């Protein structure tokens, strides 16, 4: 009998179901897409923009590299410059194939003198771990897959810091965006607290022990502590609309093994002045050859929603590209999309069409990100 692939569950799965969440399969994981008790996707999305929302993101993967050669190993596989990281600092980066295309995007955290912690996508957990282990064999460091060790809860929104401060002795006001600290959280000692997220808002991600009882207790304490701020539980539906408004890439959509760094517009995270990293040579050649397609933001002009995979056309109806991600944007109240098109259509104001169920609907290129969080005064 062929092996049956069982659906994977996070430690909070029973809690989501008890809350009445609508569940969906996401890359083999049984995950909440929205919670009727939160009011659904639009309410969840706007709670994060205006107050605070929490997400179970335990399906994401965690890899630790530790040892004298850990930095060198990270520098070899990651396109950003990890040597710039102070202890407690994090950066967005990507792991690249020799062709300069994406294995995955990643957040690299420096947790200690010789300790780096990579957080990777759920759908690429095994692929990434094997990739990291295989491509760092020559370096003096241990590579561990800690993905199953943590329940990861994201607390996102302008009130996220106020919520989490009630539950921890760590001084969160001293933690800048994309920095981490450790502290007691809900009575648990030495918890990794990162000021990171995937919502284009301020917020934190906490990494707690993955046993079901602890995970449920902390989840419920976070919801209780957040009541005064209007906290709601949020699912993958809102997670997607939030990251889309902020133009944050999603693997398999804006980035993939057939898309390179220049096309994806992630130049600022790619440090070509590093002496060496996987994919660097190919990227040099690609830069010299020039990009044939580039990622742009679109806003619909005609009625209609541009969705993932829809064709993009020039004003005469000729096919020029495709939508990587598209949706109604709940905070902006517009229909927006990201798409790959030839560079001549990239300037804001450029007119294109999106094919929606056989009809050519007008859209225009707009500056991105579509949404930027207001600066705290």
């Amino acid at each position, binding site marked *: 009998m062929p092996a049956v692939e069982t659906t994977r569950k996070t430690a909070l799965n029973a809690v989501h179901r008890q809350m009445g969440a*609508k569940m969906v399969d996401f890359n083999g994981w049984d995950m909440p897409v929205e919670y009727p008790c939160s009011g*659904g*996707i639009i309410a969840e999305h706007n709670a994060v923009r205006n107050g605070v929302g929490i997400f179970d993101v335990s399906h994401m993967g965690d890899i630790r590299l530790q040892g004298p050669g850990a930095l060198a190993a990270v520098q070899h596989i990651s396109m950003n410059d990890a040597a710039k990281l102070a202890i407690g600092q994090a950066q967005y980066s990507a792991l690249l194939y020799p062709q300069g295309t994406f294995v995955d995007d990643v957040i690299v955290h420096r947790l200690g003198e010789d300790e780096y912690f990579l957080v990777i996508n759920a759908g690429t957990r095994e692929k990434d771990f094997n990739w990291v282990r295989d491509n760092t064999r020559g370096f003096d460091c241990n590579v561990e897959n800690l993905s199953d060790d943590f329940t990861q809860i994201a607390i996102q929104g302008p009130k996220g810091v106020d919520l989490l401060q009630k539950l921890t002795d760590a001084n969160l006001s001293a933690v800048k965006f994309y920095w981490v600290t450790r502290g007691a959280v809900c009575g648990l000692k030495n918890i990794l607290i990162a000021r990171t997220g995937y919502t284009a808002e301020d917020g934190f991600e906490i990494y707690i022990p993955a046993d079901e009882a602890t995970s449920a207790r902390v989840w419920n304490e976070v919801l209780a502590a957040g009541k005064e701020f209007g906290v709601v539980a949020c699912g993958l*539906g809102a997670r997607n609309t939030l990251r889309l408004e902020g133009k944050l890439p999603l693997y398999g959509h804006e980035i993939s093994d057939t898309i390179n760094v220049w096309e994806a517009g992630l130049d600022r995270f790619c440090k070509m002045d590093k002496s060496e990293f996987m994919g660097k040579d190919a990227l040099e050649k690609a830069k010299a050859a020039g990009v044939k397609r580039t990622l742009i933001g679109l806003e619909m002009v005609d*009625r*209609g*929603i541009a969705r993932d995979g829809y064709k993009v056309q020039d004003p005469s109806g000729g096919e020029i590209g495709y939508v990587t991600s598209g949706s109604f944007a*709940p905070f902006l109240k517009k229909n927006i999309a990201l798409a790959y098109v030839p560079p001549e259509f990239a300037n804001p104001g450029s007119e294109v069409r999106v094919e929606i169920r056989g009809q050519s609907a007008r859209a225009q290129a707009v500056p991105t990100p579509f949404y930027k969080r207001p600066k705290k005064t």
Partner: protein
Amino acid sequence: MPYPTDFKYTKEHEWIKVEGNTATVGITTYAQDSLGDIVFVELPKIGSEITAGKTFGTVESVKAVSDLFAPASGTVTEVNGELATAPEMINKDAHSAWLLKMTLKNPGELNSLLSAADYEKFVAEEGGH
């Protein structure tokens, strides 16, 4: 959730309210609940012909596009213009947020639709979560 007894229902979760030779069509509260927040509705033009069992438009939630299936054949006489700017009315009250009105070509088709009691039974079996 009680389904109005003066409506008839399809297995695709549309309702139809018949008054003489004209009818009003919408989607059920079960449908809007399954869909989640409705953000876009695409309806046929006034004067167009729709055919029982065939698609006549779409309703979109944040996550998905769903076809609308005609409960009966006929000509569209009115569409609910409010849904262009406030599609969420369907989530608020699906049984009064009508989609279109039509004249009926073949009222006999209505006999194959479900009564409120049968529809309620149908969704109870389909629901499961």
